């Protein structure tokens, strides 16, 4: 699935979260959306999930408007929130079968297998899990939907190194198995560096730079950047912004 964002503006009162943003996520790409806190990443994810209607511009996922066609798009999109938000009183396996009832292509074996690999007790209430376990449950729910598009809002936020490793392993497995299009926002530059095919750096609601990671790296080298890691690219483009 491909995402097209044209001239999108999104405001919170007087604050402009997205300022006439243009962005393009090609089908089959792993698009890492980088940016400092408050750069508009989460607002963009909300708009893409149809939780928020943009104040201007056009936003389309495979030609559909997520605000209007959200319920149809969500059969093919899976997303994990920045903060895990499943009903805290429900047990993990109950959450699984609840979400499963909405998805025809639900991968029950995959869901159980992942929880097993992550060592998450399925008979425990969601609210009683640790932060890392909650995050992994959300990821398992998303992957079990066998989505065409994965929207991950800071998937490694607050995870310990083991859980973080799980996230990337599962992501790589998903990419290898199904070639899902992935859009993720992250601060975990090191973790995403080897996976991302495309990078966009967002600052104050505008895209500072967008392109294939390799192209950005080589252009940075020619411009004399010392070590063209994603981190250095990020600092190169966004680090001094607003300071």
């Amino acid at each position, binding site marked *: 699935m491909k995402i097209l964002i044209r001239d999108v503006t999104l405001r919170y009162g007087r604050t402009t979260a997205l300022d006439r943003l243009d962005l393009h996520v090609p089908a*089959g790409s*792993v698009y890492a959306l980088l940016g400092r806190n408050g750069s508009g990443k989460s607002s963009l994810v909300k708009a893409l999930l149809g939780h928020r209607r943009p104040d201007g511009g056009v936003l389309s996922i495979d030609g559909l408007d997520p605000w209007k066609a959200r319920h149809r798009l969500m059969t093919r999109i899976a997303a994990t929130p920045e903060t895990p938000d499943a009903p805290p009183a429900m047990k993990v396996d109950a959450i699984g079968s609840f979400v499963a009832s909405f998805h025809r292509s639900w991968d029950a074996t995959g869901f159980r297998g992942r929880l097993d690999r992550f060592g998450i007790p399925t008979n425990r209430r969601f609210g009683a899990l640790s932060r890392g376990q909650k995050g992994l449950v959300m990821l398992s729910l998303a992957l079990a939907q066998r989505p065409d598009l994965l929207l991950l809002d800071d998937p490694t936020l607050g995870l310990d190194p083991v859980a973080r490793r799980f996230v*990337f*392993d599962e992501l*790589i*497995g998903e*990419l*290898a*198995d199904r*070639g899902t299009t992935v859009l993720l926002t992250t601060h975990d530059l*090191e973790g995403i*560096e*080897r*996976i*991302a*095919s495309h990078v966009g750096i967002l600052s104050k609601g505008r895209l500072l730079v967008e392109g294939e990671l*390799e192209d950005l*790296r*080589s252009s940075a*080298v020619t411009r004399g950047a010392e*070590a*063209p*890691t*994603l981190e250095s690219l990020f600092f190169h483009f966004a680090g001094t912004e607003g300071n």
Partner: protein
Amino acid sequence: MLHLPLSIDTADPRPIGRQIEAGILQLVTSGALGPGEPIPSVRDLARDLRVNPNTVAKVFQRLGEAGVLEMRRGEGTYVSQAPPLPTAAERQSRLAEAAARYASVAAGLGFGAKPAAVTLFEAFLALESEERKRP
């Protein structure tokens, strides 16, 4: 699971795909991977190296087109029976490239040409003794 002694350095200015490609070529030219030997699947290698499987797939495709690797449908990927070895000039230029990298690292760490050459020589000796220990 098959395991290739490859490593990725994100500080390396070369793209990740190029690094993997160079690594595999290195293994083949050095004979560490003999003709007809199996190579890990895209998925396994991507997991192993923790990189995007698409990147690995592209490397395999390029090496396949160059005749280094051979994809057998339903079986897996293998080193070709007769992988084309690099020409003398190619070998020379790669050596020079690697030497330049080594020199820049050494200079960055504050070493002169002489101690760097000595260290390089020592590394060669260590490599040879490793080779000898192998069954």
